């Protein structure tokens, strides 16, 4: 029973993240949504790994630890980029650019 409860919760949290990612316009909120999706995946991983009945499968636990560090890394990088984007454009949203703008990048 405990497993079913957490499976349902993880699927709902993942779905809520997808919903937020599609609908939110502010990039910070999109990042929150992505982190929620990650939380849903991790919760599912541990629940399916037998967490309800005793110490869960150690491999999923290691995967979640790795996943948490990757999530914080990607989020931190995205946040740094968001600050710079805001400085350059005054926007914290992604608009479809005019295709005729300067392309840049000859490096």
């Amino acid at each position, binding site marked *: 029973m*405990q497993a*079913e*409860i*957490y499976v*349902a*919760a*993880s*699927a*709902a*949290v*993942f*779905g*809520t*993240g997808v919903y*937020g990612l*599609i*609908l*939110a*316009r*502010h990039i*910070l*909120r999109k990042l*929150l*949504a992505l*982190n*929620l999706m990650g*939380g849903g995946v991790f*919760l599912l991983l*541990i*629940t*399916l790994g*037998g*967490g309800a009945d005793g*110490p*869960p*499968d*150690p*491999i999923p*636990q*290691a*995967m*979640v*630890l*790795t996943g*948490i*560090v*990757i*999530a*914080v*890394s990607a*989020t*931190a990088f995205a*946040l*740094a*980029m*968001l*600050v*710079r984007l*805001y*400085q350059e454009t005054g926007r914290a949203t992604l608009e479809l650019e005019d295709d005729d703008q300067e392309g840049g990048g000859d490096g």
Partner: protein
Amino acid sequence: MGISLVIDVLLALGLVGLALQVVAGPSLFRSIVLFVVFGLVMALAWARLHAPDLAMAEAAIGAGITGALLLMTYRRLVELNPEKRGETYLGSRWLAAPVGVLTGVLVGLIGWAALQLPPGDTTAGTLARDALDETGVSNPVTGVLLVFRGYDTLLEMGVLLLAFLGARAVASGRAHSPGTSEVSEPALVGALLSLVVPLTILVGIYLLRAGGHAPGGAFQAGAVLAAGGVLLSLTGRLVPTDHTPLVQRLVLVLGLLVFSGMGLFMLFAGSAMLSLPGTWAIYLVETALMISIALPLALLFAQAPGLKGRGH
């Protein structure tokens, strides 16, 4: 049985309710705060699911460091443009219903698929438990992270380094001071810090040492150390520099260098790549990892390429 089931139902409802508030709540600031609460509730769920290693990591990294990063970024955005604080953040209303239905279907499918899966009997994880004796550690999670799947952990250190490099690449020239160094601070802050910071180091070392046989390990320890760094830079004891000093550059890559250096040594000595010559090697690698986890997290929070003590 009855009462524990109630706790689980409450935790599950709490997670879903908080998630909904995070994506649909009216204020962005409130959403960030609720996201941190979500992380803490998640840590409780990990504890309920017999995964104390994850409970610690979630509280320290998932809620703690991520939350601090989100709040710091929010503050900078408001500083950059104070008027825009009240802008509506959610997208078009007419999309909400169809997207809601779609994600509802997705939730149903994923939940259903997960429940159909038969409980595994022999998995890689059960093999890991059986082979744990030969590793010299008794915490199976540490065994997997360092011994059986050390390669994942090593590449993950590369991801963390990338986050730092990427943030440095997009940072605009002048270092931003996140601290309140110019403002006078309450008298007790200094005294409190001189207690808390040594404590974080102590807790970090304890967690690292404990990881071999009890919940803990390099990641949790690194996150606690990073929290110490965050406190020091928040209170202006550590101030940003424009460049990354040599020592800090070395520390950032120390984990990668030690782990892969030892791995290559073993490879060319005729053993397998990334095999570790003993328990001491596990602790050596873990110590290097801990340091190389703590520094980039602290630097990412400070939004600076490097840090130095005030007055230097």
